[in-house]
């Protein structure tokens, strides 16, 4: 798994590449913990380079979103590929997460949240 992180307008944008599953989730967790540990924790996770996600991957994202919410922020997802999108739909976790096609849309949504 590869990780990239950048900061834009007080938002942490995390980009993962590869597969987010039980074999890689322990590598991903520290990145997510770090980004969601700030205050306010405004995070966008770009999954456009992620080909596969299983329940362990879902778990770590759920955990991270909860943490972001606790820290006066939120964690939004963007760029989901079809197979990954399907995993969210089939578990109905698309009701728990806000999912956007483009990073810009996710950033705009966070802006609105912060203003409101």
């Amino acid at each position, binding site marked *: 798994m590869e990780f990239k992180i950048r900061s834009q307008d007080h938002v942490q944008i995390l980009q993962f590449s590869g597969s987010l599953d*039980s074999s890689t989730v322990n590598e991903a967790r520290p990145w997510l913990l770090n980004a969601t540990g700030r205050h306010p924790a405004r995070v966008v996770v770009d999954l456009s380079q992620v080909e596969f996600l*299983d329940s362990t991957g879902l778990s770590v994202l759920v*955990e991270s979103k909860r943490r972001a919410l606790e820290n006066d922020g939120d964690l939004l997802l963007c760029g989901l590929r079809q197979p990954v999108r399907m995993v969210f739909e089939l578990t109905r976790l698309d009701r*728990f997460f806000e999912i956007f096609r483009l990073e810009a849309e996710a950033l705009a949504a966070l802006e609105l949240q912060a203003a409101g």
Partner: protein
Amino acid sequence: MGSNLQALSKTIDPQEDLQVIEDLTEELVHTRDQLVALYQVSQASRGCWQVEQVLERTVETIERLVSARAVLLSIQPEDQDSLTFQTPQNFLDQEILGQVLFCPQGKNLLAAGHFGAVRSVASLRVLVLPLDIRGTTEATLGLVFGKEQQLKSPEIKLARAIADYAGAQIENVLLFQASLELTRLETEMDLAYQVQRRLLPQQVPVTPGLQIWGASRPAHRVGGDFYDFVANAEDLVLNFLVGDVSGKGLSAAMVMAMTRTILRSEIQDTQGENPQVVLQRANSALYEDFLEQNMFATVFVGSYHPQSRLLAFANAGHSPVVYLPVDGAARLLEPDGTPLGILRQTLSVKQSLPLQTGDIFMVGTDGITEAENENGERYGIDRMLDTVHQMKHLPAERLGPQLVDDVKLFRGHRAAADDLTLLVLKAIST
């Protein structure tokens, strides 16, 4: 040594001869000393496999081998407190002992070809020798000499050899302890596996007009998948549930056991009338625990009424759920609510499906759809729907195993990454 022998036979100068012989003898003596030391140190820990015992005996043996005033040893295994030994006991104050033997870059020193270091303490000189032990354990041997004692190259070489042998002994004991620990854990896992196997349904309840087949295979020794039947003897309603706890191994298995128990209890309470209420109540009961563990569970609860042939169900984020009508194509029934442990309130609604003779209803877990082969391809939902469609004429007891076999065949040599559970119901003529 060979070249010295040759030199010996060629030389004609008696003075030189004597010198060469003296040098050779000294070399022999030192080599013999090293061999004796090896033997004694290796014998020191024979038959004892407790780390502390081995360290004590090693230190005592070394004291007999070298003309040191005292022998010190400190060892710091990973994630544990450090242990120190010295003989004579209490030769040095504990604190000073720790400082003298402190050698955090010990393995690097050895790798760079150094023997260790020499340190001064009061009127003493300490030869500080790091031990080369595999892994993250740090250990250092210290030999204490008076300032007046000479520390020549042969003595240092002997000390280094002793340190190396001692290091090997300690490494052995640590490895042995680690393998004992592993065996202990294996036994616990075996027991957990037994418990879990017994929690799975031991029999399939007889239900008029319905063929039933179910199986569950954990990917590792224990897993987070489950399926269960809750039969009601009076009205022959067949309640069944299939679930998948996120995560793997022992922690998922423990959460699974809890979840299953609560679901069973709620099904019995509601008499199988309201699968959506079962999910709501189970979610309420388990929400805090799930939150605490950062886990969630996808759950399907179904209830088949033989008289009306109606299948009522509710689905909290679970898939694959497949409905194959006798006269149509197989399709995936998507869940409408989030898994247990995600939101404080679940939103799954009750759905009803009248079954006709020949209809097939299946609930599996992602051990089927996520099965991966050597080329990194997944079995997938489409393949599952196709395969099931081709087997639609088979009775449940044959369809189930054949689908599982097909998944195994697809996986090939790749090991299963997910638990696999499958429940097959087929409506037959009454």
